[in-house]
């Protein structure tokens, strides 16, 4: 059916049936305000089953991630080419570890064979404890999806208070959205489809580590 015919049927259904819209008070839906966003985010993220680590500046990031890699005994680690904060510190620490480090994009076989994937984030959301990942050059969708462990690195300044604040950030440029995919990740993958028994680790990662780089006093 053509767009015209389809919409004509919808229009016909609405004839004589439209009321003037009343203004929507979005702020009624606000659940997180200002205040200590990092503390709110960390609490909610932990409640969602993610491990949250804090780094005082970019320096300690390498050591924190290296510790995670050692703990999970990862042999192959994937890292996005772009968008990862403290990248040089991170790579330096990873090169010291026994794990093989692959920089995305890589071949499909490598992606599915990786033990951990490291990405940056676009935003984090304090209200829900979510990290927001966005597609783009040097950022692979599968880095945070295929390996059983996902490590997300962000700076404190990337934490937004509420889903409403995230919503207004998703803006279209003159040619529409500049990215193809954005996903809010809130915890490891899970299911309760078998007798409502919760199982963690289905198709997505079974473990998510979030490393937050605290901002300086001087920021």
């Amino acid at each position, binding site marked *: *059916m*053509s*767009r015209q*015919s*389809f*919409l004509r*049927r*919808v229009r*016909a*259904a*609405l004839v004589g*049936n*439209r009321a003037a*819209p*009343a203004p*929507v*008070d*979005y702020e*009624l*839906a606000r*659940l997180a305000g200002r205040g200590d966003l990092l503390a709110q985010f960390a609490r909610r993220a932990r409640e969602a089953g993610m491990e949250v680590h804090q780094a005082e500046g970019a320096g300690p990031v390498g050591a924190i991630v290296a510790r995670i890699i050692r703990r999970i005994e990862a042999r192959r680690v994937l890292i996005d080419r772009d968008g990862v904060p403290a990248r040089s510190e991170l790579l330096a620490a990873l090169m010291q570890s026994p794990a093989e480090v692959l920089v995305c994009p890589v071949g499909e076989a490598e992606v*599915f064979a990786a033990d951990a994937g490291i990405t940056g984030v676009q935003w984090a959301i304090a209200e*829900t404890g*979510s990290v927001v990942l966005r*597609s*783009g*050059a040097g950022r*692979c*969708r*599968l880095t945070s999806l295929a390996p059983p462990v996902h490590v997300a690195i962000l700076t404190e300044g990337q934490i937004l208070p509420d*889903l*409403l604040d*995230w*919503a*207004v950030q*998703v803006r*279209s440029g003159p*040619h*529409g*959205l500049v*990215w*193809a*995919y*954005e*996903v*809010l*990740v*809130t915890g490891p*993958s*899970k299911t309760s*489809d*078998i*007798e*409502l028994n919760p*199982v963690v*680790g*289905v*198709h*997505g*990662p079974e473990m998510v580590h979030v490393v937050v780089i605290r901002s300086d006093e001087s920021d």
Partner: protein
Amino acid sequence: MIRGGFSARADQAVADLALQAAMDRATGRQDSGRRELMGELPDPLALRGLAGQIRDQTLQRLDRHLEQLAVNVERLGGSVHWAADGTQACQIILGIARRTGARRLVKSKSMLSEEIGLNESLTAAGLEVIETDLGEYILQLAGDRPSHIVAPAVHMTAEGIGRLFSQKLRIAYTEDPAGLTRAARRVLRDKFRAAQMGISGVNLAVAQSGAVCIVTNEGNGRFVVSHPPVHVALMGMERVVPTMRDLAVLLKVLARSATGQRITVYTGLCGGPRRPDEPDGPREFHLVVVDNGRSEILAGPFREVLRCIRCGACLNACPVYRKVGGHAYESVYCGPMGALLTPLLESIVRRGDLAHASSLCHACAEACPVRIDIPGLLIAMRAELKRVGQVSRWQRLAVKLWAWLNRSSRRYHASAWCWRVFFDARARGGWHARLPGPGAGWTRQRDFPAMAETPFHKLWPQLAETPRGRQWQG
């Protein structure tokens, strides 16, 4: 009385003890999850009112929002297809598969795809279609149908699934949910990698940006929309919101109402095919917008039902659904919303008996995150059933007689007196073990009380003078 098979299927379901245990466990947990997480909100009623207002206002200008959505999807490099009904939708998707040479398809959960029989259509054309949502995958292996719109395999036991997997996947028997999930993960991973086309549903499309929002917990939804070279998103025409802020409001109530989570693990926004500088993502994005009877509903008195965001909260709250489960409704859409949607999409004459699968207790209305007046609509549907001649003559007469007796205080007291003196004489110890005629349906399961010795209207003059009685009068 009312034609249709719901009563018979409900009887069967109630006698099925395994089903009873499964339903009790599943719905109980999800319902208490909803109460807890909605209770966490500072003003749940206000938020639900806001969500309902957004959905309602969207429906009022649905044509404009759909047009804006289409323009924006195309601006991002996607294609929009319009299907008047399920057959057209299946043909469109089949056409895309043929043109792109896709023979191996993976699907994430879409109730609409079940409504239109998409899997059967594609399979008949020789294509392999694999459900990747764990519950749906289990049902596909078993050749069974979903019984709940959010947890579709809730009627199956772990033992049953264990036997199914050991038979179909040729693995050692286990009934451990984690082990079964791991087995499914292994199988489905290979399917994701080999798939040439991914088909998803759409939770809500955002007209302002041309992005479609898909929420999941398992991660299969992310694979389906990201890995295969072609992504087809199947959407009911009413599943759109105007702006991102509207989406944010609905996201705040959706997961809380459905599964008692603040938000689902993955809330994804798909905005067209991959951009030129992106290393992965689909090369083609298709949005298939389906009517299939929705514009008729939009035009009529049941329009409010189109607010539905398929959270399943009404199912988990409904005492009828919690007893009989989804199969008794014999429809893709079950529970209170299904009792409305099924007759509206199929035929009020043939499926209208579902409007009686309710005691009008209002649990569904209290649970609905977009404040659909389900009980009000069920009553309207019952009136519609009468209008189209689905209510038997003697039942209409009986109700007329009852109404006549109760409209006058004198007739009411007189008939109550007759009942007490002549009928309640048969009661033993204040209870009737058996009622005659249609009342036998009631006393098959329980006794029916005799009237009180002193009727309330005779007690009231004394009660009115007591402190409590005065309190009641305000």
